[in-house]
């Protein structure tokens, strides 16, 4: 039994994967977890409080807008915005920048809207604490969606694509 720990070495076992190579994969998975957890939280709130009084249906807008913003942000690549991609596309570099600007505006706008829903819709009217929880859900959802957009956009590096 003596010395049976001698074979253990740190850092060079086979399970030591190269995290730099895997960066895009991890960012994609993290983005997926955030995105779908956010949407399942909102589904949970919607089935738990189906009445219009506790949970106004118009509040779903900020989640939808954040999803649209996510699609917009990730539909253009970073290379297109910097102008070092091979093809110009149909609206060029300026168009890509304007598109990305609008996408980020939608994303931040939905985050701000979710804060408004939390305070204006649930905290200030002093409903039950369940309602405040319900409003916090929106904040969590929207910030999840925003973080997920940022992770999926900037967590991945496009150098690995070449």
């Amino acid at each position: 039994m003596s010395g049976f720990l001698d074979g253990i070495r740190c850092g060079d076992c086979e399970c030591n994967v190269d995290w730099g190579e895997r960066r895009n994969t991890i960012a994609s998975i993290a983005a997926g977890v955030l995105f779908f957890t956010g949407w399942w939280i909102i589904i949970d709130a919607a089935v738990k409080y189906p009445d219009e009084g506790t949970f106004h249906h118009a509040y779903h807008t900020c989640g939808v807008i954040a999803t649209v913003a996510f699609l917009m942000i990730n539909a253009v690549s970073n290379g297109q915005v910097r102008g070092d991609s091979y093809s110009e596309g149909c609206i060029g570099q300026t168009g890509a920048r304007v598109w990305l600007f609008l996408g980020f505006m939608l994303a931040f706008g939905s985050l701000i809207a979710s804060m408004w829903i939390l305070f204006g819709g649930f905290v200030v009217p002093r409903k039950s604490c369940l309602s405040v929880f319900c409003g916090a859900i929106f904040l969590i959802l929207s910030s999840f969606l925003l973080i997920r957009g940022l992770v999926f956009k900037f967590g991945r590096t496009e150098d690995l694509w070449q």
Partner: protein
Amino acid sequence: MAGIKALVGLSFSGAIGLTFLLLGCALEQYGVYWPLFVLIFYVLSPIPTFISRRLSDDTDSSSNACRELAYFLTTGIVVSAFGLPIVLARTTTITWGACGLVMTGNAVIFLTIFGFFVVFGGGDDFSWEQW
């Protein structure tokens, strides 16, 4: 021969996972079959990876946009499979015990699917197209 052993082991763990799922549905004190809808997620979960592997066969790059989108969608399907029993349990459609059993089954089944990809689809010398 190693492939046969892995196949038998994976089918065993898949059967265990399905047993957990059916226990969560069919035990006498539970008896609600709504959680069986996670079967749809089991079927859907490998499909994005299949599509991206078939479409992107440039193996010189370590990653590409198509494959990352496939990972994103796969993660979403897995998260949905865990989210569905939680939501069902929170609305008291099923009990929390059934929810726990279904989620255990989820974990086992998804590990099985992941194991399929590691054993049969991951190696460089053994490509998925040989199936």
